[in-house]
């Protein structure tokens, strides 16, 4: 008997017992569903992180000096050590600017949440407010849509001007022209000089609900204690200069902090690679831990299928006797049971894939997590389902093949 006829037979069998078949493959459905859903989200994250996230958070060809890592898994003791670290200062940025000796832009940036209020009283809360150097825009590739950016002299003299993100401008002023208007940031008046290009969102966090003012303007007091900055960002002209620039930054900072050769750094120097390696770590953990969970579901699913197939073999004892009487060999019977079990489980896998894709879509629609359906994982899931069915079918198939035809024909 060829496998195609076997599959047709198996499908007829499954159609005749839909509910029972469904419960038989529930384990496989669940296992495959989670496999596909999680893998889709992880793949989506992967693509997102490598393509968008690294650029938006860290900037391209940029190096960031911070007190603690931007993204971290710190334990309590590590956290306590970090809290004792000295904070970065404006002077650190000046020293880097003077001593780096490479073609580079250097900027400081500090941020905080703020409430913005237009002249007519319209309030926008939870705005991402930055106090930054004038070069910050070029380093982060923030493009201006309307108006202008602030200049180095405006920063130096602390002029209260502000560049708004697309969403912040829209929320404050609606269809009116925001340029030249006054806006109160945490109650302090600023003049709007520009609006940035729309940037979209990152994990549901709007990149356009923001305001960027000169670091030395009155925002300085809103974002940090006097003289302190959150980070210093450095953009070199060429990616090949990054390793050298990192070494020099480290040397400059260590000497400024008076660290001895045996002391560890009490600051961090990050590039977009650090963000990527952090993500690589998470996804590696997922890829290691996850197959364990999926295999548990599949093993349980396999055991259920095996039992269902055993019952099915017993129920069809007489049929097996008839098949043997008209010439089915052991291998024909074995193949029949295996094909049926593999078809059942394969169908379960397909159902699991469909639900998994649905779940991934749901995650994408309802949460900021991206999701990408990867065809190679779908193929793997189908193979997995079929494989589980095959393995689960071995024992029932052997039992069926071993039936004595005379006894089987007399069954019932």
């Amino acid at each position, binding site marked *: 008997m060829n496998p195609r006829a076997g599959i047709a037979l198996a499908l007829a069998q499954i159609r*005749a017992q839909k509910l029972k078949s469904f419960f038989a493959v529930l384990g496989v459905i669940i296992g495959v569903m989670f496999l596909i859903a999680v893998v889709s989200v992880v793949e989506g994250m992967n693509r997102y992180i490598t393509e968008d996230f690294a650029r938006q958070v860290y900037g391209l060809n940029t190096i960031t000096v911070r007190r603690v890592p931007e993204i971290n898994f710190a334990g309590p003791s590590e956290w306590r050590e970090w809290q004792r670290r000295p904070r970065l200062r404006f002077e650190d940025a000046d020293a880097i600017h003077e001593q780096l000796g490479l073609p580079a832009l250097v900027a400081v940036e500090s941020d905080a949440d703020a409430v913005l209020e237009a002249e007519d009283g319209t309030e926008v809360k939870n705005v991402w407010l930055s106090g930054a150097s004038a070069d910050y825009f070029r380093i982060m590739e923030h493009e201006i849509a309307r108006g202008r950016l602030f200049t180095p002299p405006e920063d130096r003299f602390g002029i209260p001007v502000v560049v708004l993100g697309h969403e912040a401008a829209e929320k404050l002023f609606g269809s009116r022209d925001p340029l030249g208007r006054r806006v109160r940031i945490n109650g302090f008046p600023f003049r709007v000089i520009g609006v940035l290009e729309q940037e979209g969102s990152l994990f549901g966090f709007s990149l356009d609900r923001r305001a960027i003012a000169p670091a030395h303007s009155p925002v300085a007091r809103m974002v940090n204690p006097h003289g302190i900055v959150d980070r210093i960002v450095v953009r070199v002209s060429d990616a090949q200069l990054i390793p050298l620039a990192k070494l020099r930054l480290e040397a400059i900072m260590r000497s400024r902090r008076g660290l001895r050769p045996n002391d560890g750094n009490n600051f961090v120097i990050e590039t977009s690679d650090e963000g990527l390696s952090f993500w690589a770590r998470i996804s590696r953990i997922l890829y290691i831990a996850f197959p364990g969970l999926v295999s548990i579901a599949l093993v349980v699913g396999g055991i259920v299928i095996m039992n269902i197939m055993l019952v099915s073999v017993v129920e069809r004892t007489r*049929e097996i006797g008839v*098949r043997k009487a*008209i*010439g*089915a*060999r052991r291998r024909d019977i074995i193949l029949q049971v295996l094909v049926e079990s593999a078809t059942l489980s394969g169908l379960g896998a397909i159902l699991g894939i469909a639900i998994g894709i649905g779940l991934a879509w749901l995650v994408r629609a309802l949460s900021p997590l991206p999701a990408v359906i990867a065809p190679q994982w779908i193929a793997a899931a189908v193979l997995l389902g079929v494989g589980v069915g095959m393995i689960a079918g071995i024992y029932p198939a052997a039992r069926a093949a071993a039936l004595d035809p005379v006894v089987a024909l007399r069954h019932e």
Partner: protein
Amino acid sequence: MSASRNHAIIRTHALKKDYVLGAEIVHALRGVDLVIDANEYVAIMGPSGSGKSTLMNLIGCLDTPTEGEYWLDGEPVAGLPDDELARIRNREIGFVFQTFNLLPRATALHNVELPLIYGGIPRRERRERAQAMLERVALADRMHHRPAELSGGQRQRVAIARALVNRPSILLADEPTGNLDSQTGAEIMALFDLLHGEGQTILLVTHEHDIAEHAHRAVTLRDGLIASDQLRSVPALGS
């Protein structure tokens, strides 16, 4: 044809079959010598428990004897491995059972195709042969019906078509009319007569005399031994 007429299809020598039932051994067959030639039409009779079905199963290669020898078409069969017996059942034997034993979910056509599937016959030929066989048992218009949609007589005719589709050396029928009313039983027996007339060798188990009368030879079993073996005075082939 005439050369094969006296050729022995079935030859058994001192065929014995014991069943072990707990501590007890049942001697179902105690030494049966039987020769059946090509184109014979033999009825096996005897009271219940006399070993008719056991003999039938041995001749049909569904079971192996405890002792003794058996040649099918000149080939020694006793002691062949499982798969070899399956091949013989597929090519040489056609079974008809009292309870029809059709696959309930398969159409008449598929039921008849089944032996050809296991015989490795290609799809087209399979289909054609199965259709031709169903036409011969007058079921051309019922090919796509499932057993539940057929009457008892029709089911048994499907079973007969299935038994014959591989052109077996011998047709084995165990109480083929046992589950049918007498009218339908008579139709089935008429079909057997027709098949025999066309040269088919038939071995029929029955305990009913009027059924046995269709055969030209009656072998009676008693307690696992042949008690009598009589040729009937019914007219032989063709006359």
